[in-house]
């Protein structure tokens, strides 16, 4: 549970880090229209092609874009799921309380001897 939780948080941090950069935000915006080859994306920026590729790589590592190769071209596509997860803020509290309520049950079980016949023999 713990490592998975940590991983999830790290991913979210990665998503936010991606979004701190205006170039990357613009790239995501451009990709909303549909998948595009890197060359077509690069024309919107003053920076070099490798620099744009570097930003795309960061977005890929954050799970925000998917890359496929078509001949010699790299084609990018928006992956909105991580953004939706981050945006669904209430789910954080839901996870928080679900975890805590399981811990409350464990706490009660540990702190008190089994009342005779009052418990299921699960776990």
């Amino acid at each position, binding site marked *: 549970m713990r490592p998975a939780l940590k991983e999830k948080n790290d991913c979210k941090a990665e998503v936010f880090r991606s*979004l701190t950069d205006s170039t990357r935000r613009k790239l*995501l915006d451009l990709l*909303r229209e549909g998948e595009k080859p890197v060359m077509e994306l690069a024309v919107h920026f003053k920076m070099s092609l490798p620099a744009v590729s570097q930003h795309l790589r960061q977005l890929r590592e954050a799970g925000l874009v998917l890359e496929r190769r078509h001949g010699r071209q790299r084609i990018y596509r928006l992956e909105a799921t991580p953004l939706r997860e981050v*945006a*669904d*803020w209430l789910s954080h509290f839901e996870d928080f309380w679900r975890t*805590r309520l399981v811990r409350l049950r*464990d706490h009660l079980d540990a702190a008190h001897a089994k009342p005779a016949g*009052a418990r299921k023999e699960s776990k």
Partner: protein
Amino acid sequence: MTRDLRFEEVYPYPPDVVWRAITSREALAEWLAPNDFEPALGRPFEFRSDPKPGWDGIIRCQVLEVDPPRTLRYSWVSANGAVDTLVRFTLEPVPEGTRLLLEHTGFRGAKSLMISFLIGAGWRRILRHRVRATVERLAARP
């Protein structure tokens, strides 16, 4: 826009045992978070968890209702006030033991709140305005 969370659990223990678990500092530290709670009306207290990216880990609370062993209610404020909510525990004796109803209410402002919640001191300034729009726009994409 307001959304609420409600959880219901039945514990095979009498209400006073469950009440202790939700009002004793030591018990709370074990299952919820380290704290300086005291079941006294009006008393401010804090839960302190490990800081996460974008969150200092501190929840500031104030006891609003104590009715042992039935109702406990406190305010729940974190992320510099971006999360300003209420938590209520209601215990009810049932044949199997105690039914605990947990309500966390008062969430407002939908997605922007999550942004504030996750964004820490360092990022807050940069992200507050520019990112919110991007996230909401992109998240709305089918």
